[in-house]
C-alpha cells in the first residue's frame, strides 16, 4: 500500500520532470522559459515537502520571482524567440548530446548508489526554524555570506556599468544643444 | 518634494468628501431625468411660430413673406402662401401661410430665421427632449404654432421687448388714425 506521502512525492516529481522535459523540447523559446519556471516551482514543492520552509519559499521568491523573469526578458530583448521555418529545432549532433547525458547520469548514479551514506539509517528531518538558519548564517557561515554579498554587489555594479557604457557610446548629432538643467522659473522651450 | 502638496491635496479631497453630504456647493451634480438644470434666457433649440390670443389660426403672426425660408442656411423651411388675407395686429390685411413645414432633421438651430423675420413671428424654442419612435421629423404649422404666453414664459426678456415694440407700433398707428380721422361717408 503506497503511503500518501509517497504519492505526493511521485506526483511532484512527475510534475517537475515533465516540465523540465517540456522546457527542453518545446518549439517556442518563451514556452520553454515558462515551463522552466514551472519546474522551479516543482523544486520548491520538493523542498517544502522536506519541511525546509525557508529554502522552499526562497526558491520561489528567487527563482520564479526573479530568475524566470530575467530569462524571459533576455529571450524577448534578444529576439531569440523567432521560429525559423524550415530549420529543425534540434541540433544535428543530438546523438552526442544524448551520449554525454547518459554518461553523466551513469556517473552520478554510481556515485550515489555506492556511497556509504545510503547504508546509514535515514536521519530524522532536521528541524530548521528560520531563527536557527539566521544564527548559523551569522556565526558559522558568515564568511560565505559576505562573499556572496560582495559577488552580488559586483554583479549589480557591473550591470550598471555595462548599461551606462552603451548609452555614452551613442553619437549625438552636432545640432543638438548641450543639455542643461532648467533654472527655477525659466520656461522650458521644447522646440 | 517633502509631501506638503500631497497633504494639501488630501485635505481638499477630504473636504469634498465630507461636504458632499451636506453642502450643495460640494456636490454639484444634477441627477438628470428627475432634476433639471434651471433654464437660461438665451437657450435655444428648434424654431416655433408665435400666435397672439387664443386661436392659432387667426392670431398667427406669420405673413408668409418667405424671408426665413430664403435666409435659412440649411433650406429646411417650406412655405406655401394662402390666397386669402386677414388683418394683423395693426389692422393691415396680410397674407398667411397655408403650409409651413420645417424639416427638423435638417434644421441646425442657428437662429437666422428668427433674426431676419420682420414680423416677430418665428422664434427659437427651448425643447430638447425630441426623441420619438417614429420618423416624423417634419413639423407642420399646427405643430409649430405656440402662443405668445408660451413665448413670454420661455424667453421673458425677449418677449417683453417684442411686446413693448408691438404695443408702441399700435399706439403710433392709433395716434395717426385719431389725428387724421377717416371721413365718414354720409
Amino acid at each position, binding site marked *: 500500500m503506497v503511503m500518501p506521502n509517497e504519492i505526493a512525492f511521485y506526483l511532484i516529481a512527475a510534475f517537475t520532470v515533465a516540465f523540465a522535459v517540456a522546457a527542453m523540447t518545446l518549439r*517556442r523559446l*518563451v*514556452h520553454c522559459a*515558462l515551463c522552466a*519556471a514551472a519546474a522551479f*516551482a516543482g523544486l520548491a514543492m520538493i523542498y517544502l515537502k522536506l519541511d525546509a*520552509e*525557508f529554502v522552499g*519559499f*526562497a526558491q*520561489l*521568491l528567487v527563482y*520564479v*520571482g*526573479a530568475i*524566470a*523573469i530575467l530569462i*524571459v*526578458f533576455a529571450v*524577448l530583448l534578444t529576439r531569440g524567440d523567432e521560429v525559423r521555418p524550415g530549420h529543425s529545432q534540434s541540433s544535428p549532433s543530438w546523438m552526442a548530446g544524448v551520449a554525454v547525458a547518459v554518461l553523466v547520469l551513469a556517473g552520478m548514479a554510481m556515485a550515489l548508489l555506492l556511497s556509504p551514506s545510503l547504508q546509514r539509517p535515514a536521519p530524522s528531518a532536521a528541524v530548521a*526554524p*528560520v*531563527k536557527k538558519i539566521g544564527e548559523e548564517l551569522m556565526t558559522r557561515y558568515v564568511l560565505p555570506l559576505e562573499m556572496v554579498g560582495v559577488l552580488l554587489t559586483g554583479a549589480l555594479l557591473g550591470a550598471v556599468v555595462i548599461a551606462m557604457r552603451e*548609452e555614452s557610446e*551613442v*553619437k*549625438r*548629432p552636432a545640432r*543638438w*544643444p548641450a*543639455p*542643461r*538643467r*532648467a533654472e527655477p522659473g525659466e520656461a*522650458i522651450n*521644447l522646440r | *518634494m*517633502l*509631501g506638503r502638496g*500631497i497633504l494639501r*491635496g*488630501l485635505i*481638499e*479631497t*477630504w473636504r*469634498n*468628501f465630507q461636504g*458632499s*453630504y451636506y453642502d450643495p456647493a*460640494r*456636490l*454639484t*451634480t444634477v*441627477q438628470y431625468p428627475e432634476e433639471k438644470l434651471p433654464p437660461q434666457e438665451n437657450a435655444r433649440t428648434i424654431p416655433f411660430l408665435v400666435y397672439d390670443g387664443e386661436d392659432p389660426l387667426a392670431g398667427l403672426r406669420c405673413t408668409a413673406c418667405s424671408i426665413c425660408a430664403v435666409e435659412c442656411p440649411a433650406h429646411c423651411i417650406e412655405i406655401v402662401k394662402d390666397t386669402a388675407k386677414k388683418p394683423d395686429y395693426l389692422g393691415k390685411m396680410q397674407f398667411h401661410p397655408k403650409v409651413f413645414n420645417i424639416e427638423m432633421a435638417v434644421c441646425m438651430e442657428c437662429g437666422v430665421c428668427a433674426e431676419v423675420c420682420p414680423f416677430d413671428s418665428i422664434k427659437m424654442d427651448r425643447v430638447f427632449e425630441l426623441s420619438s419612435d417614429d420618423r416624423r421629423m417634419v413639423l407642420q404649422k399646427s405643430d409649430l404654432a405656440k402662443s405668445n404666453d408660451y413665448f413670454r414664459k420661455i424667453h421673458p426678456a425677449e418677449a417683453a421687448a417684442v411686446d413693448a415694440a408691438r404695443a408702441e407700433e399700435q399706439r403710433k398707428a392709433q395716434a395717426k388714425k385719431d389725428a387724421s380721422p377717416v371721413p365718414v361717408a354720409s
Partner: protein
Amino acid sequence: MNALDQIFVSTEHWLAGLAPASVRPLVAMLLIIAGLMAVFGTCFALTTILERKTLGRMQNRFGPNRVGPFGLFQPVADGIKMLIKEDIVPFSADKAVHFLAPLALTVPVWLAFAVLPFGRNMSAIELDAGILFFFAIGSASELAVFMAGWSSQNKYSLVGAMRAIAQMISYEVPLVLAGVPVLMAAGSLSLPDIVQAQSGFALGWVPRWFAFTPWGLAGFAVFFIAAAAESNRCPFDLPEGESELIAGYLTEYSGFKYALFFLGEYLGLFAVTGLAVTLFLGGWQAPARWLEWFPSWGWFTVKFSALIFLFIWIRATLPRLRMDQLLNFAWKFLVPLALINLFVAAVWWKFPAAMAIRWLLCAGLLAVPYVWLGRHWRGGTTELRRYGYAE
C-alpha cells in the same frame, strides 16, 4: 466577549466535527477556504462599488446610484455584464498562454490569504516563515503579467507588460526592506508571532504597535507606497491607465478574463493591506484596554477598512506618475529611505525602553535623510530629452 471573538474558530471546529475522523483535516481546510473565498469575494464586490461612490463624492459627484438602493447592486450588474460578454481571443495569439495568464495571476493571490491572522487564533496556516511565503507568492504573480502581455502578440501589450513588470520588480525591493525592521523587532518570520509582539501598552495607554515608533512610522509609509505600486494602484497605475490610452497587457482580454485580472489586482491589494495591518498596526489587537470587548476580527476589519479608504483617498487626489518618475522614485528615494530605516530600527533597539532620548535620536536620524533626499530627488528630468537611438 470571548465567545464572539472565537465564533469563527468554534463554528469551524463544530462543522468539521460533523465529518468522519479520517477526512476531518480535509473538511476543516475546505471550510476555511470556503470561508475566506466568500468573505474576500464579497469584500471585492463591496470595494468596487464603495470605491466608485467614494471617488465620486471626492470629485463632487455621486457614484453609481441607479442599480439597487444607493447603487449597491452595481457589482451584480457588472458581473452579469462580464459573464455575458463575448470572449475574443486574437487569431495569432498563443492560445494556451493567453488562457492561463488570468489564472496564473489570480490563484497565487488567493494563496496569500492563508497566512494572514485575521483574529485571535484565526490564521489558516501557521507557518514558521509566513512573511517569506507571502512575498514569494507576490513575486510569482509577476510572471502572469508577462504571460498576458506576450501572448497577445501585440506590440503595445508587450511594452505595457514590460513596464508593468519593471514597476512591480522595482517596488518589491522597498516593500520587503520596509518589512525587515518589523522582523528584527519581533524576532520571528511568523505572522501570528509578529502580532503577538505588538501586544501590550506602553505608558499604560499607548499600544505597542510598530507604527507608533519612528522607524515603524517610516516603514509603514514606505510599505504603504510600495504596496500601492505593487497592485498597480493610482498614482502608480501606469499599466492600467495605459490601457485607456494606447494599450497595456490587458488589451486583448475581454469578458470574464478581464474580470479575473481585476479580481486578482483587488485581491492583491487586500492581501498586502492585510499584511500592512499585521506588520505595523498590531493586527487584531485593540487600540486600548477598555476596547478589548470588541472582537479581534472586528478590529482587523476596522483597520483594514481604514487602510482601504486611505488607498481610495489617495487615488482620488493624486495624478498618475510617469514611468521614469515612478522608477526613479522607487530606486532613488524609497530604497535609500528603507535602508536607513533599517539602520534606525537597529539603533532604536540598542537603547533600553526607558530612555526617551531614543525617540528624538531616531526621529532625527530619519528626518534628515528624508528632507535631504526629498529636496535633491528630481522626479524625472527637466533637460531636453536625448533620444539615443532615433537618428
